[in-house]
């Protein structure tokens, strides 16, 4: 294992961990496709931030992406409530429009924007170790490690501090509202963290494969436990396993690591769907057979 390999695995694991944490709440609140929408819609935010600052400085890009992610959630809400448009269509109209604007901006400024249009969809994690951060004379290691590491910590703090509110808002929004929790505030805050996570993962795995990391580990965990705290932990573990397994698969097939990570996470999901002790298809089938046989 070379140092590059080590850094790739670290970055992949951090991306998976940060996505898994916020992804659990998206899944529980049936907002999986909103995660998809946000991961597409952050593109214009990133491009506009770049155009305004003229550099790939991370803070403006994060701010731009968070603003665009929240705008996506807000516009979807407006179309749904005020425009009387069903929520799935409202989401579809909003994010494709924002994404199209992002692609147009990238195309228009090709040559001046340091963004390869293909990287929008699939980042190349292999190159991440080469982009290092320096502080004076010290090489602090790949920039992506610090970025995704910081976001992982932020997400962890967010989940720990907001655990009670997030839990109640996820399982019973009406109860949350009745006991004084500001449901809209926590909704948009979650959207902000999803956007933050998306843009931090952007360069490593691309906008769309973030969706895989956001919701596949969470759904896998959802099949393996009925407790939220366990779901969060299992989700992170599944995410990290997907990152490690994805690296191995990519090496074997000689393809993109991000794509392989998504495929491995899908494989883990299928395993859980089939074999989970309580919610798996096979155990259910066996239990039903046993019940059918018993009367005889």
């Amino acid at each position, binding site marked *: 294992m070379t140092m590059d390999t080590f850094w790739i695995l670290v970055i992949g694991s951090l991306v998976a961990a940060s996505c898994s944490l916020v992804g659990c709440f998206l899944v529980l609140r049936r907002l999986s496709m909103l995660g998809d929408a946000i991961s597409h819609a952050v593109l214009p935010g990133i491009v506009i931030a770049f155009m305004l600052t003229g550099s790939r400085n991370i803070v403006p890009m994060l701010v731009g992406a968070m603003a665009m992610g929240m705008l996506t959630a807000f516009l979807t809400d407006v179309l749904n409530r*005020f425009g009387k448009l069903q929520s799935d269509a409202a989401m579809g109209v909003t994010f494709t429009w924002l994404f199209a604007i992002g692609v147009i901006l990238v195309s228009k400024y090709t040559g001046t924007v340091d963004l390869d249009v293909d990287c929008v*969809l699939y980042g190349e994690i292999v190159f991440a170790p080469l982009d290092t951060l320096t502080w004076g004379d010290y090489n602090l290691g790949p920039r992506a490690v610090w970025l995704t590491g910081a976001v992982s910590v932020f997400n962890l703090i967010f989940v720990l501090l907001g655990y009670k509110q997030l839990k109640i808002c996820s399982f019973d929004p009406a109860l949350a509202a009745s006991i004084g929790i500001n449901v809209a505030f926590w909704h948009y805050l979650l959207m902000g963290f999803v956007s933050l996570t998306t843009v931090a993962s952007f360069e490593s795995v691309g906008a769309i494969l973030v969706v895989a990391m956001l919701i596949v580990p969470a759904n896998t965990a959802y099949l393996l436990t009925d407790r939220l705290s366990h779901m969060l932990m299992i989700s992170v573990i599944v995410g990290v396993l997907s990152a490690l397994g994805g690296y191995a698969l990519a090496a074997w097939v000689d393809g993109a690591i991000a794509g392989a990570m998504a495929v491995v996470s899908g494989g883990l*999901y299928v395993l859980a769907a089939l074999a989970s002790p309580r919610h798996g298809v096979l155990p259910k089938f066996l239990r039903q057979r046993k019940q059918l046989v018993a009367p005889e």
Partner: protein
Amino acid sequence: MNGAAPEGLPPWLEFFTFPSANVVYVLAGCVILGISAGLLGCFAFLRKRSLLGDALSHAALPGVCMAFMLTGTKEPLVVLSGAVVSCWMGSLAIEWIVKYTRCKEDSALGMVLSVFFGLGILLLTHIQKSGNAAQSGLDKFLFGQAASLVEKDVYLLGGLGLVLCAIVLVGYKELKIVSFDPDFARGLGLPVRAVEIALATMIVLAVCIGLQAVGVVLMAAMLVTPAAAARYWTDHLGRMLLLAVLFGAISGFIGAYVSYLSARMPTGPWMVVGVTSIFIVSFLVAPRRGALARVVRHRRFRRKTATENILRTLYKFGEAARDWHEPRSLGELLQHRDMPMGFLQRTVRRLEHEGLVSEESGGRFILTRAGIEAAERLTRLHRLWELYLMKKLEIAPDHVHDDAEEIEHILTPELEQRLMDELGDEGLDPHGQQIPAAAQEGQAR
């Protein structure tokens, strides 16, 4: 520019002379896909599965790559076949997840979308690294590249588009019933399952038609947005289909046109911007369902409510004083009705214009005869409703007033008659106040 017109027309006009075969192919391809997507998107929309197109368009990518790996060629039919198979597998996977696991439909869509796409990316990058010279251009399926459309592509897309339109025309009745009420359709003996499979297949084909021009990511927009825009204009499915097809075709034209004018403008995103612009206009200005129409209706209702409330307040003053000819000032009205002074002034001015109120000296107002009659009817509705709530719904007398305050504005003459029939000749409301008699008796006064 090849074959430029002799007069050297400016580019924005030159487009319409079809200066090259490529322009024709791009335009035709974009319009065809707009039509197909608009048509099938309506059914996905009505079944609240707008995002299914998004999931399937992403799920098509591994099929495209597998087809290339198996055949070594990018023949349109080969690519299309791979995409269709892949979409179908994605569709079945979504259905399986929803049916056999506790995961919900939105999660199933998101998982299939991202895992299939991840597989597609893995295969795509594998192909690129294999050094196979024929693979160049496969990545155009990510964002679409209408400029690469050739005659063969357009004929294939056109043929498929025609087939889809024909099927919708022939099976319109079945598609309509199954989309709106599957259980009713089942009761009629229609083969609901078969219709649903046919519909899913057609959506898959519509998605695959658009992949080359628009790409896997934005194809979702072409399925969702024309239908959503059309929905604002009509409640009839037939007209909705026609409008969605028109909007899809227009956006196809816009995409081809803009990308012709500027070499660096991609077609797909401009198609999406075009159709979303149509959507925004529809959202704002469509009669009945548009935002502006609803704002206007809301303001009109607010004015009506304010007008009627002032009439009733003046009536109660007169009733209490047993004198219909004593004028009241705006200040007195404000003590009974909470509204801004400016709004009150405009309301009273409107009443005066309608002949229900007249101004006496010193800015004080009095009900005219017509005003008394109108106010009398409103008061009767208010008190009848209060009585109805108390006697029929057994609501306590002190709880009935606020509800009646709202209902009186929307009770129709038919409801009024039914209330009177129901309640007989009761003379007093729950608060012991006289219920004014009906208009024909009132005239005798």
